């Protein structure tokens, strides 16, 4: 049990003594999660909006598929991405295996269904009278779209944060595609897995706390921006 308290102490030491290995893992985690989120949001919000706003044949089936993909096991994604980026795979020549970019691709596959599905749900759950109100105010199609999007912004944001949480804490993809290579592809989560394997439980707890702190800063900034 005492390793939990030890971990707490160690977390402070790691952060304030400028431990290079920890900062390298923090940088790797931030890099892969930023890339994955940038692509997921850029693609996911418009797709999710379209899925929730437009009425087309097969919409429910598409929703069902996207919702199911939210449950993609991360190790499974890792193996699929590995199969593609392995030197003998179809994308092998790009040299993406054991790189941060490779991890980011896997994380994008993980985050995208979450962003699409929750954005679609957010748009669907906007007040039904919103549409008539906007139309009665003389809104065009374009204005109707942006009006709805604006109204759903908080729910979309919450969905994005949920996706961000999954991406930040993911370990299977990072391990298989990244290879947990020191100074290069070691993220905080793969470092936690490694320290746990080494029996350094306190160190694992410390790194976990570091990850939580980063999540806190991100969520804090979002909530600050929302208030303004």
């Amino acid at each position, binding site marked *: 049990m005492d390793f939990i308290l030890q971990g707490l102490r160690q977390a402070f030491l790691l952060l304030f003594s400028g431990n290079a290995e920890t900062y390298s893992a923090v940088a790797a985690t931030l890099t892969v999660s930023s*890339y994955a989120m940038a*692509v997921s949001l850029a693609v996911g919000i418009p797709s999710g909006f379209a899925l929730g706003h437009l009425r087309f044949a097969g919409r429910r089936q598409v929703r069902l598929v996207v919702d199911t993909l939210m449950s993609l096991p991360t190790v499974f994604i890792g193996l699929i991405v590995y199969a593609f980026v*392995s*030197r*003998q795979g179809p994308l*092998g*020549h*790009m*040299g*993406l*295996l*054991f*790189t941060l*970019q490779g991890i980011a691709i896997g994380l994008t596959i993980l985050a995208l269904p979450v962003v699409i599905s929750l954005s679609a749900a957010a748009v669907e759950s906007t007040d039904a009278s919103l549409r008539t109100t906007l139309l009665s105010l003389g809104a065009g199609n374009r204005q109707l779209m942006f009006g709805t999007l604006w109204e759903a912004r908080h729910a979309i944001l919450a969905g994005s944060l949920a996706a961000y949480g999954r991406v930040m804490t993911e370990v299977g993809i990072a391990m298989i595609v990244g*290879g*947990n*290579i*020191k100074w*290069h592809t070691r993220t905080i989560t793969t470092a936690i897995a*490694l320290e*746990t*394997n*080494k*029996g*350094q439980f306190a160190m694992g707890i410390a790194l976990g706390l570091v990850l939580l702190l980063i999540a806190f800063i991100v969520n804090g900034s979002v909530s600050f921006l929302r208030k303004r």
Partner: protein
Amino acid sequence: MKTLFSSMKRHFLWILILAWLCGPALAAEPQQLLMATTTSTDNTGLLDYLAPHFTKATGIDIRWTATGTGKALALGQNCDVDVLLVHAPAAEKKYVEAGYGQNRREIMYNDFVFIGPTADPAGVKGKSVAEALEAIKAKKAAFISRGDNSGTHKMEIELWQLAKLPQPEKESWYVSTGQGMLTSINIAAEKSGYILTDRGTYIKYAHDKGGQPPMVVLVEGDDVLRNQYSVIEVSPKNCANAKADLARKFSDWMAGAEAQKLIGDFKLLGQPLFIPNAK
């Protein structure tokens, strides 16, 4: 002109993304060697200790990914790494025969030991491997297995066969963890069970427990317990892109006087973790 500029601006993001995706392929440094190895060489800190010396001697930047021997061999077969440092002689020989690797070179060894709780419920202390396994089976004492196709797991399977006992995969006292060595030792300690481990990892475990570990060495020194580590170069015939020349340099260095001395000097709690034996 203006339209061209604005279209460039519009596509700037995509150009950036494309450049970022292609980046690693274009910027591949020639002097970079990628190795797949087993958790034991990494978890004990041996590689962290050797790597700077190797880089200093050869100018080659070595990176490694540590997994079980089974996956390390698969990474070599799929051309994802250039060189392997593994410990499962029988599997390695097959691997080289199949044409996936070349120039298998024995570098160092440590030995396997059976550890268990100090109380030793099955009374295996000082016995031979075969007698010890027999006693554990008779007493139905908890036995913890890595169960992950690692070098250690392969050795354990071999030992059951050598003792002419059936693999107790389905017995209630047999626990297959599917996890790394130290994690499995910790599970064995929680369950007061017996487990096969490489001595290096055990010394590290004892060190982490402040030199007063709840698990102690009970069976050791049997000839069948030697754990041989070898370097194998990924065959350029199977993988055109394997950096065979750099892999050879690594293999030569590991078998050379400098590395062999460094390996012998690598100690924890005053005990050597690996014994160099390159020919």
